[in-house]
């Protein structure tokens, strides 16, 4: 690993790297915990999402089938006309839920009128019963569609966050931390080396001094 070139083997540098390693290790542990918990939540959401999607797809299929029957029994113009001016209106309010630092939308949905029969924007004279059935089925399945939207968005956002967190964990685990450990090892060895060379130098100097002293005697 390329560290030796840009690291000064000093005590100060060693101390700093050790502190950084400590922070990195701690960060790694925290991020790992975050990833695990996110993953758990994510899998719950996925499961919910899957169930909801199956329900919605089945429900919609049924509603569409009724709609198909209705469109065969009625002329397309009348069908079009009957649905042209809806009595009902829908608004969505958005609140945020925070799961492990991921902001997830929660939809609260409000209809303009409370009456259930307001989903039929026509008089019953010209339309077939199949159309009523289709709309009823649709309004039933719509509740699930809303929940599906919420689960699906949550799933996407969480997937993105998990991906990010996983990258960070891996970068710390396989790059940053080994690199710092390497640096620490390098500095420690260099410092020890210096120490040894100082010792030998001192011994040498001492020998020389002694030698001179002895020569003086003669």
């Amino acid at each position: 690993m390329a560290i030796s070139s840009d690291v000064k083997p000093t005590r100060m540098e060693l101390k700093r790297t050790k502190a950084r390693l400590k922070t990195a290790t701690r960060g790694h542990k925290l991020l790992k915990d975050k990833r695990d918990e996110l993953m758990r939540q994510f899998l719950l959401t996925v499961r919910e999402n899957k169930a909801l999607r199956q329900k919605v797809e089945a429900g919609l299929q049924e509603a569409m089938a009724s709609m198909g029957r209705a469109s065969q029994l009625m002329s397309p113009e009348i069908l079009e006309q009957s649905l042209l001016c809806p009595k009902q209106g829908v608004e969505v309010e958005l609140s945020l839920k925070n799961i492990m630092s991921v902001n997830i939308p929660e939809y609260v949905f409000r209809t303009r009128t409370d009456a259930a029969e307001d989903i039929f924007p026509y008089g019953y004279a010209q339309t077939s019963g199949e159309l009523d059935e289709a709309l009823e089925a649709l309004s039933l399945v719509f509740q699930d569609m809303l929940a599906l939207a919420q689960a699906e968005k949550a799933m996407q956002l969480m997937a993105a966050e998990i991906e990010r967190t996983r990258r960070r964990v891996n970068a710390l685990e396989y790059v940053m931390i080994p690199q710092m450990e390497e640096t620490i090892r390098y500095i420690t060895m260099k410092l020890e080396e210096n120490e040894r060379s100082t010792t030998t130098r001192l011994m040498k100097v001492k020998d020389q001094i002694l030698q001179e002293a002895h020569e003086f005697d003669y």
Partner: protein
Amino acid sequence: MNYRIAVIGDRESVMGFRALGLDVFPVEKEEAKAVFSGLVKAEQGPPYAIIYITEELLRPLRAEISALKDELIPAVIPIPSKDGTLNLGMEALNSAVERAVGTNIL
């Protein structure tokens, strides 16, 4: 703040949603792109929190939709059309799992 819900797809599949009070946009495949980006921008009125889209339109709009994946709004949700499901919704689910886990574990 209030948001709206849009449904976009072929005429027959989305017509019914109009009665529920959703904003319905019947489109042909060719114009889908323009209509969809118009929905995302939502220049008039409150923005759309959810856009339901029939599975037939997913493929031509793939680039636009995946750009919105990490945004909070709108949520783009595929729904089956009158001709039945193409299983693209489930595919989207699997790809999200793959993105998070690294492999498909389902």
